[in-house]
């Protein structure tokens, strides 16, 4: 053996061993140990502005913000915090070798408390969104994922989005998934608080309700509820993240990243979830991910192939959103009126608003035309000298008179959807038909009574008599035309995308309900007054024809 190569060989072996050692240090466990060791070494030194990790490993308690009324996830029983999140907090504390102090937080206070350094960590059902990325440093990987669960009776067949068109779904105002429900043509019934939804399902006010699955998880532990209801499907997944402050928590955040990786890989999160009886599907999937060699490294939490992205909920603003906000501020400052115009500030809301106005006008024009046309048809058939035709028209008129307008709309929509797939046009068409039939049959009855009275008076027959009868019943025709225009907002009940429905959809995912409904009321009142004015002209014209006749 040539001794001259020996130093080179030794160097190569040393380099190899060093590389292997470095590779071994890449595991999250070892990276965590190194980090903790370095943090402990800082204890007793007079370092300025220590990282929160150094503070807690050197004896200060880890202050964790948790919920205290979120069943299964974080509640307080006899002064003790229990649930999935407090259990995770205890496990973190145990692994870091620190003490903890729970601080009660809610959705509104959890981020401000972190910013004010009154807590070190948020572990409180916080969804990771791109908007919150600017306020909080989220721990990756996420410790849970919720989704919006659509819950309904077991007896009701709902498999996917196609089955939701025109169905009414009860939701809480402000839920981020409402916009998605709207985009699938579902009608929303809004409630201020999610807490009432299970009761509204139980008392059958709501057939379907949509809310976070973590919210429904508690109710599904109630056997009576679980026997009657089931989750139909889930959507709008939101990853939940622990959060630390964006400054002064770099090392704490890093330690928690590594711990989360370890907890996923080793099934610790999964075990805690099972203990607390919450859904484990996400955690089972995550365990598989974090056991993969490319993810089970110290850098795994920064690997886009391993971690989930934050949910992006930002809606595209309109080009004039800034001007609208300035106008709102100006009105508030000068007039003291708090006006919010969400329909003008984001592109989806503005689109819904414009379509709503256009569809309302189409609906009103269509309903007026249909009412007038059906008034002529019913007037002619009810006054017909051919008895079977007259009886049939009478039967239809009686049926339509006996059906509340909302029910007539629903029946029209049921027939329309049995024949055609749902679309805005079909819903508008069904609404026009229902409003036209209801009001036209009533107006037609007045026309037929005029026909009969003219017969009795021995006036002329045929078309001249009919025109004369239209003039004589002009007051009734006009009254039912106005009634048809006033009834158009009810079309929102069957999913016609008119202004009331469109702005109800906008208000389900944005603020400003007071302004929205004031505007809808003003819009419809003005439109109906215009119809009343126009009908005055029609009445004068019809009565003029009677005088001529």
């Amino acid at each position: 053996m040539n001794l001259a190569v020996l130093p080179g060989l030794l160097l190569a072996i040393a380099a190899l061993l060093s590389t292997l050692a470095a590779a071994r240090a890449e595991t999250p466990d070892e990276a965590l140990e190194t980090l903790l060791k370095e943090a402990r070494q800082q204890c007793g030194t007079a370092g300025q502005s220590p990282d929160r990790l150094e503070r807690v490993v050197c004896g200060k308690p880890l202050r964790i913000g948790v919920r205290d009324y979120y069943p299964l996830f974080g509640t307080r029983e006899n002064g003790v915090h229990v649930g999935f999140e407090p259990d995770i907090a205890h496990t973190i504390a145990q692994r870091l070798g620190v003490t903890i102090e729970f601080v009660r937080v809610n959705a509104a206070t959890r981020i401000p408390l972190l910013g004010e350094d009154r807590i070190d960590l948020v572990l409180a059902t916080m969804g990771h969104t791109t908007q919150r990325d600017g306020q909080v440093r989220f721990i990756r990987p996420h410790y849970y994922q919720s989704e919006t669960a659509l819950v309904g009776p077991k007896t009701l067949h709902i498999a996917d989005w196609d089955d939701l068109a025109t169905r009414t779904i009860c939701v809480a105002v402000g839920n981020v998934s409402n916009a998605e429900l709207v985009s699938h043509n579902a009608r929303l019934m809004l409630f201020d608080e999610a807490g009432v939804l299970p009761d509204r399902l139980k008392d059958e006010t709501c057939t379907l309700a949509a809310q976070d699955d973590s919210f429904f998880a508690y109710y599904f532990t109630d056997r009576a509820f679980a026997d009657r209801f089931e989750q139909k499907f889930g959507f709008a997944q939101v990853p939940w993240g622990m959060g630390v402050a964006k400054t002064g928590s770099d090392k704490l955040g890093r330690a928690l990243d590594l711990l989360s990786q370890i907890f996923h890989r080793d099934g610790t999160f999964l075990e805690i979830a099972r203990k607390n009886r919450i859904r484990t599907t996400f955690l089972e999937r995550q365990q598989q991910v974090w056991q993969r060699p490319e993810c089970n490294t110290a850098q795994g939490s920064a690997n886009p192939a391993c971690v989930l992205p934050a949910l992006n909920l930002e809606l595209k603003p309109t080009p004039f959103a800034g001007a609208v906000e300035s106008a709102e501020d100006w009105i508030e400052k000068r007039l003291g009126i708090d006006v919010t115009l969400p329909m003008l500030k984001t592109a989806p809301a503005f689109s819904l608003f414009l379509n709503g106005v256009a569809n309302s006008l189409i609906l009103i024009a269509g309903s007026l035309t249909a009412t007038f046309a059906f008034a002529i048809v019913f007037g002619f058939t009810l006054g017909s000298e051919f008895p079977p035709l007259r009886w049939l028209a009478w039967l239809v008129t009686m049926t339509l008179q006996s059906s509340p307008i909302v029910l007539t709309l629903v029946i029209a929509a049921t027939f329309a959807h049995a024949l055609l797939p749902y679309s805005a046009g079909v819903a508008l068409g069904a609404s026009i038909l229902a409003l036209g039939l209801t009001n036209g049959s009533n107006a037609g009855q007045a026309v037929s009574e005029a026909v009969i009275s003219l017969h009795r008076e021995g006036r002329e027959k045929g078309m001249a008599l009919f025109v004369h009868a239209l003039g004589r019943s002009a007051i009734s025709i006009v009254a039912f035309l106005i009634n048809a225009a006033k009834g158009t907002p009810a079309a929102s009940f069957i999913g016609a995308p008119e202004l009331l429905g469109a702005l109800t959809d906008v208000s389900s995912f944005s603020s400003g309900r007071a302004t929205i409904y004031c505007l809808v009321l003003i819009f419809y009142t003005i439109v109906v007054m215009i119809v009343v004015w126009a009908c005055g002209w029609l009445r004068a014209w019809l009565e003029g024809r009677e005088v001529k006749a």
Partner: protein
Amino acid sequence: MKPADMWGDYVPSLLGGMATNFEISIVALLLGLAVGMPFAALRFYGGRLSVAFAAIVISLMRAAPTFVVMFFLLNVARDVSVFGMKLNMSGVMTVAVSLVPYSAAYTADAGLDALRQWDRGSPLGALLFLPNITRAFFVIVMASGAAAAIGVPEGISVILREAALLPSLGDRLVVFAIGIVLFGVPLQIGLALMRWLQRELGRRLVGA
């Protein structure tokens, strides 16, 4: 749909729900009378300005669509405080109040007509106010079905809830038909009563 389910469950629920429709309508009519009659008096006895004011208010009330007023009350009026107290109207009350513009406008018109008849020395003519109000009541009963849109458990809600659970179009149509019959019977009786009242009063008017 099995007949046992229909008669044992659906029909009693529907009748219970319809009781809420009548409750809503009675409240709406009474409030409408309370609001509408002063306007009728204002139009009849008032000066030019007060007549114009009353006419404008009545036109606005006549033009306001019930469905929109209901959503307005539900979303806006709940934040309104009267003498420091929040209104906090129940669902039933919200629907009843949303029907008041119609009911008050109708009462104001019919009331004005009755006052004119009375002034002309025709008390029987003035009594035509009663069949007119009966007609308004039944219109309100039918319109109260709008309550289904805000989750009030009335008749239409019961019909829709039952229909939503049925897979076949035929079964749903049976449910709708029963609803129409149960809503239609009191309506047609009411309208017949109104026609009888009008005929009787008309006969006496001619006799007088």
